[in-house]
């Protein structure tokens, strides 16, 4: 795909018409909302409302200090528009979390119905968590999975019911002082998921969480902790969306995954925030001996995303597999990369990144492969491909490769290209019109990622791409 695309400007015109199907909103009716701005009082309120143990409150206060001390990142996307004092840090939609959809307040249930979450739960899933602004409003796991000893709740519940796990792992994979937004999350976290899969248990159908921001100018700071015990296996899916507001919102989640010996965790994200959301997320996994961690990370929404799912390969023969996809349109800057840190012998990793920039959008792949001195015979392969649809868009790749062990092997390949006239001509000669030909090429480009997505999300992604090409040429 090295040749020119003469029709780029026409495509750009059409891309601005892409409808965002999830931009609807409910009237704000929270049972509690903190005032605008961040202070120790806000942290106290959150902790009190959650009636959480003192040790967690201490963690929050310490993290808040880190947040105020740490500067904004001096690299990556432009975050200068974020005003931390113009956000609300805790908006509680209901007073309790339900385990059947019938008990969820009507207005909120309708929202999740429109997002088809209950339908997906019935058809495809072992359990579902649904977060609305700052709190989970619904959490349910099938009896069959619960009987296997699988825990699927939120971190608040886990603090009370499984404190030994939370104390042992919370903040160890992503320490509060890791970066400014990890510190912010640790200070004001609310909601998210806690998953524990016991030894040898395979959760055959995925667990899913859906995060919805409804209120204007808020921050959503869910916290997810997944512990896959020895020889277990689980697939977790998260989706997200928000209404379109004039004011910006902030989503700064932290995800920590612990894959113990021989465990396998797959974490799939379908990020579809509205274009007023700053999505600044820290996601990291630790993989112990012979464990496998897979991130499937699809990004199409948000105003700005900075997200680099990471795996620390700590045990011999552990493996990381990261698929990253970004689709940036007008006004969007999506930084979606990946990091793998090889700390043990015979560890392997593969990173595959695909990005598409269109209508003035900007994509950035920022990656790191770091082979430590003890990672003898480590192997890593990185492929990143970027497709630029028109002359207004940008693509960047910033891979960093470090090796401190002479027995390691690292390979990296990257290409940036546009849609070739010869490919278009070939497809058109088979009877496709230009729009269909463009859509087919783009769908083919992202096919390696699409086939890894759950079917309902893959179909949605294809639909969005087809819409983006509608009326684009001729």
């Amino acid at each position, binding site marked *: 795909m090295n040749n020119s695309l003469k029709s780029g400007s026409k495509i750009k015109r059409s891309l601005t018409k892409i409808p965002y199907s999830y931009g609807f909103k409910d009237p704000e009716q929270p049972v509690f909302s903190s005032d605008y701005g961040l202070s120790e009082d806000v942290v106290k309120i959150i902790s009190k409302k959650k009636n959480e143990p003192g040790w967690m409150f201490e963690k929050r206060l310490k993290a808040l200090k880190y947040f105020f001390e740490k500067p904004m990142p001096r690299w990556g996307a432009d975050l200068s528009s974020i005003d931390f004092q113009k956000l609300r840090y805790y908006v509680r939609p209901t007073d309790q979390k339900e385990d059947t959809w019938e008990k969820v307040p009507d207005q909120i249930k309708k929202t999740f119905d429109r997002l088809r979450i209950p339908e997906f739960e019935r058809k495809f899933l072992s359990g579902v968590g649904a977060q609305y602004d700052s709190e989970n409003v619904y959490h349910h796991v099938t009896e069959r999975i619960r009987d296997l000893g699988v825990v699927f709740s939120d971190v608040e519940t886990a603090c009370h019911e499984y404190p030994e796990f939370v104390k042992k792992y919370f903040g160890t994979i992503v320490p509060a002082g890791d970066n400014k937004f990890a510190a912010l999350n640790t200070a004001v976290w609310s909601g998210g998921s806690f998953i524990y899969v016991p030894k040898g248990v395979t959760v055959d159908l995925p667990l899913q969480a859906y995060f919805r921001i409804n209120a204007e100018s808020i921050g959503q700071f869910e916290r997810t902790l997944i512990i896959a015990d020895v020889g277990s296996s689980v697939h977790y899916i998260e989706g997200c969306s928000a209404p379109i507001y004039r004011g910006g919102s902030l989503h700064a989640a932290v995800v920590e995954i612990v894959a113990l010996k021989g465990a396998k965790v797959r974490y799939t994200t379908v990020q579809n925030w509205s274009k007023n959301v700053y999505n600044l997320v820290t996601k990291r996994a630790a993989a112990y001996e012979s464990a496998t961690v897979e991130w499937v990370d699809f990004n199409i929404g948000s105003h700005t995303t900075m997200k680099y799912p990471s795996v620390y390969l700590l045990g011999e023969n552990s493996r990381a597999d990261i698929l990253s996809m970004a689709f940036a349109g007008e006004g969007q800057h999506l930084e979606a990369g990946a990091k793998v840190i090889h700390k043990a012998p015979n560890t392997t990793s593969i990173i595959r990144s695909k990005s598409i920039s269109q209508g003035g959008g900007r994509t950035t792949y920022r990656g790191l492969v770091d082979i430590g001195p003890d990672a003898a015979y480590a192997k890593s392969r990185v492929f990143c491909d970027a497709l630029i649809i028109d002359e207004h868009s940008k693509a960047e790749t910033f891979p960093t490769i470090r*090796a401190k062990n002479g027995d390691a092997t690292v390979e990296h390949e990257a290409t940036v290209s546009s849609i070739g006239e010869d490919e278009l001509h070939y497809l058109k000669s088979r009877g496709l019109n230009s729009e269909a030909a463009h859509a087919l090429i783009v769908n083919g480009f992202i096919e390696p990622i699409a086939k890894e997505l759950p079917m309902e999300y893959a179909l949605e992604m294809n639909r969005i791409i087809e819409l983006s090409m509608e009326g684009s040429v001729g």
Partner: protein
Amino acid sequence: MAALTKEMVRNGNLSIKKGETLTLLYDGSFSFGSASNPFFINVESGGILNMFSYMFNIESLRFFISIELEESASCNFDSVFMRKGLLPFSGSVTLKHLGRKSVSNVHIRGILGEKAAVTYRGDVILEKGSSGAKTKIEERALLFHKEVDVNMDPTLAINEEDVSAKHAATIGSVSQNELIYIASRGVRKENAKAVLGLGFLQPALKSVDKEMEEYINDAVRKNIISYAVS
């Protein structure tokens, strides 16, 4: 072939005039430039810069070079190095494509021996207006020893649609299969490693003339055994 001298880099910049060709040789005997103030070369429309560098000494060394390519200008930057010891080597090449149909090829190959500390950065920026530009950047490091510290950053920033940009980087040790194959012919292990190392560097020597190629290969042969013994 003109040698890049301390005097040239002291002046801070160099310009290759419209349609002219300059072939420049840097022998790695001195450091120059900095991240904030690199040695700057401008290649005007239709101009050609062929630059070849080799770094075989083990002194501390760093260089920073920034090359701008105007319309239809081209640059071939080839570099080979062999490093060992704790003294760091840091190289940085930035290529900015400003004009239409500008072309760049960067090819870096190096061998790292015991305790080698190498950072090699290659940045390619395709600016707005560089439609039809093509760039290819390749960085490859062959590791001869377990104790090494190598950093590679081959970056691409693309601000134009109708371009072709590729980069590749590899870091790896000598193939055991190849080593065994050669050793099974009665060649000592370190000699086999040296043969493979010499072969590894050859693709980066394609642009140099016969005389320079022989000079480089002689220099590699003289030194490589000391890298291969581990």
